């Protein structure tokens, strides 16, 4: 039984990039006059983790619920493992073989942990369902909780039970809607790491909805950034972070210093000096240059530009330094990689000039 459980998704894990395991084709959905999802197309390969990220109200949860079938699409098609589940025909959620993990976990309070896990195993006979449930419970490491009721569990434990319950019926796809946001800060990273390692080990195809850019980047093989029902950008985490398609995408993943520049030939001049234009990502002749804090190196011994330390925001691991620079109206924010001496007044600034981003003004 345990072996069968572990085999989840493996049949299709060898498939190539072109044949996606989950495919959405121009899917739309409106509520009354509000268009929640506008013609979204995306594809996930078997065994991969896709994260849908964006601010609240961007349509990511609606999209997830349409994949699960608890919401239907007004237009477009959804195909899971070669079977059309929404489009010309509609497959009810109970027929789709998807596992769903909710932000509030939605554990049934009148059932024990084991009974919760057994809930999705009704097509198995009693003894094999029981064996299957125990295999999952054991795999997730919550055997000691099997007889307890959800109300007596901690947040992290509840999250694991929800995951076990979703995985027990060997779903084709696991859908997770903000599954970690109810956990404490410290616990969140740990549980996320464990959960994703487990899902990777099982080669399960996962769609993860989150509003947290760090979570989206760290968890996924593929990141889809949404805004107002539309896909802004899709790609690998490195791709969407390093090569954002718009100022919005750039700012979503990391807040930047914005400096007004003027295009001169193949460089852009700014009060911080000239930046080479390696790729034309803007149309105007006076683009904004986006400099992320980590592209700036500070040195107490001086450098090409000198900044006056205005404020330091120390948060343990990192320290943000806010600098005043002559000719620049807004202060420049940098992250000190090495601790500056406490009495530092001025620092030398070095910018990785070929890494900065340039976009048209909004």
């Amino acid at each position, binding site marked *: 039984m345990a072996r069968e459980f572990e085999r989840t998704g493996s049949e299709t894990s060898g498939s190539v990039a072109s044949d996606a395991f989950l495919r959405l084709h121009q899917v739309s959905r409106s*509520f*009354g006059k*509000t268009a*929640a999802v506008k013609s979204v197309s995306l594809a996930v390969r078997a065994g991969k983790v896709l994260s849908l990220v964006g601010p*609240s*109200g961007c*349509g990511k*949860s*609606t999209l997830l*619920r349409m994949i*699960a*079938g*608890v*919401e*239907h699409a007004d237009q477009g098609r959804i195909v899971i493992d070669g079977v059309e589940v*929404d489009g010309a025909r*509609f497959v*009810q*959620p*109970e027929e*789709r073989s*998807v*596992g*769903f993990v*909710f*932000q*509030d976990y*939605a554990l*049934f*309070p*009148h059932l024990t942990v084991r009974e919760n896990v057994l*809930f*999705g195993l*009704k*097509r198995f006979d009693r003894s094999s369902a029981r064996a299957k449930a125990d295999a999952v419970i054991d795999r997730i490491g919550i055997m000691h909780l099997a007889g307890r009721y959800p109300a007596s569990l901690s947040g992290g434990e509840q999250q694991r039970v929800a995951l076990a*319950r*979703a995985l027990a*019926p060997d*779903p084709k796809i696991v*859908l997770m809607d903000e599954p970690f946001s109810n956990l404490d800060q410290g616990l969140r990273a740990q549980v996320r790491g464990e959960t994703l390692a487990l899902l990777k080990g099982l080669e399960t195809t996962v769609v993860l909805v989150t509003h947290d850019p760090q979570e989206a980047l760290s968890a996924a093989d593929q990141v889809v950034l949404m805004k107002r029902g539309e896909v802004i950008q899709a790609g690998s985490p490195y791709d969407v972070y390093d090569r954002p398609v718009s100022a919005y995408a750039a700012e979503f993943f990391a807040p930047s210093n914005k400096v007004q520049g003027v295009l001169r030939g193949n460089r852009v001049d700014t009060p911080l000096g000239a930046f080479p234009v390696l790729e034309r990502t803007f149309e105007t002749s006076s683009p904004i240059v986006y400099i992320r804090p980590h592209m700036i190196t500070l040195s107490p011994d001086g450098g090409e530009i000198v900044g006056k330390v205005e404020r330091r925001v120390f948060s343990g691991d990192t320290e943000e330094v806010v600098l005043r620079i002559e000719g620049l109206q807004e202060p420049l924010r940098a992250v000190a990689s090495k601790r500056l001496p406490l009495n530092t007044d001025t620092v030398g600034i070095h910018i990785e000039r070929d890494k900065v981003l340039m976009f048209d003004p909004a």
Partner: protein
Amino acid sequence: MLHPFQSTSASKSGGAVIPTALLVIALLVILPFGGLVREALRGSPGLWEHLASTVLPTALLDTAILLAGVGVITTLIGTSAAWLVSAYQFPGRNVLQWALLLPLAVPTYIIAYAYLDILHPVGPVQEAVRWLLGYESPRQFRLPDIRSMPGCILLLGFVLYPYVYIPTRAMFLTQSGNLVDAARTLGVSRRAIFWRVALPLARPAIAVGVSLALMETLNDVGAAEFLGVRTLTVTIYTTWITRTDLPGAAQIALALLTIVVLLVMLERWARQKQSFVTDARRNRPLPLQQTSMLHGLALLLAGTIPVVIGFAAPALYLVKEAWQRYQFAGISPRLFDEAIATLGIAAAATGATILLGLAAAHAIRFNKGRPVSGLFRILMLGYAAPGTVIAIAVLIVLAGADRAIDAALRQWLGVSVGLVFLGSGVAVVYALTVRFLAISAGSIEAGFARIPGSFDQVARTLGHTPSDTFRKIHIPLSKTMISAAAILVFVDCVKELPATLLLRPLNVETFATHLYGEAARGTYEEGSIVALAIVAIGIIPVILLSRVGAKH
């Protein structure tokens, strides 16, 4: 994100947008009212003018005076009792808090029945007063007759004030702490708090409570009749029973319904105001003011008065009378038959309301949208309508059905089945179901509303159909609400008088109709025993209510 749970709609899930079950239930509720309107229109053209010039003016005036009087009394008692137990610390406060709910167990016709005897010129109270004052005979001295408008107002006020007490106390408990503190820092004295902060704050709660108390007043037929007050409700009853004038009764019933609609509007308006107040969730209860021993005892005494008049005195009287009767004659077999009839009718109506309530709540859970919630609101109609009105309405519809069935069978099969519905008790169960469906549907739906939509969605993705989900998740999770609703409906059915009185099959008596019969005849035989039984059953929901209150 706009809609936390929207079930798949018609085109893709195969279900109708408006579920058939809900439509049928709503039709069952509406049907009698439709019949009522039709019957009222059927009356001869001169009938309305005749009614308007004879019985209606008195009935309207008496009803208006009664409503105004009961409104004032319930507001006074309910609000001051609520303030007493929420603002002051005194010995016995905890017991008094729930004891003040006890008059709810006493139906209006029972308090009237009990006090007719307690305050009778040769009853215990007047005897004691004469003995104190040194008079020898009722001819020399007697208290004003309880069989009067003021008597009726007082007695109804003392059993209906809990309708005001409950929401007002809840308001004081949950809302006023921070506001009172703020007012005091702004220079309002402790004494002035009641008038300047608490009372204005509690106004919506009081209005909700008063409108409910007035609906109960309109529902009453026994007390008013025993005490000689000719309200609209009594007039409907006598128009049908003594004059067998169904169109006339239907017309007065419609007049009564308009007053009910006004009360419902008052209640809704007040609730909207209240929701505005209850937005602040994090408020504290009022800090209790400590009192000296003497002051505390005085407060306890004051708080005990409504409990004594509205519950303890009539209940003790009934215990005493019932005991005497039992020693004198034992318990007659007739009472067993009546017990079976009472419990049987109540059980059948409870079963029906719970089943229909579950079906309706299921429909609204899995089909959101305006038409569905509109239909659902129709189910709530019955609770506001007085029992007499519903009874007349059901009578009209089922009498027609009975005649049609009998005629058809006679024509085709040559047999006469008589009155299938009215003769079998189906009519009374139907009327009680229409009247109390709101309790079951409302509380079951409220129970479901506490189950997050994600539960439904998880259950569906785990391979369960909507009806599986309903059976395995929704019903087990709302067990408490469903059984509480069943208890409330059952007890209300046992206490119910007007509809049972009008629609029970011939020669079948329940406890309530037995008591009515004795009071109407002026005989005092086994009345006290059945009244005591009704009050004892009526205490069950009071206990439930006090436990809910304790959780606050």
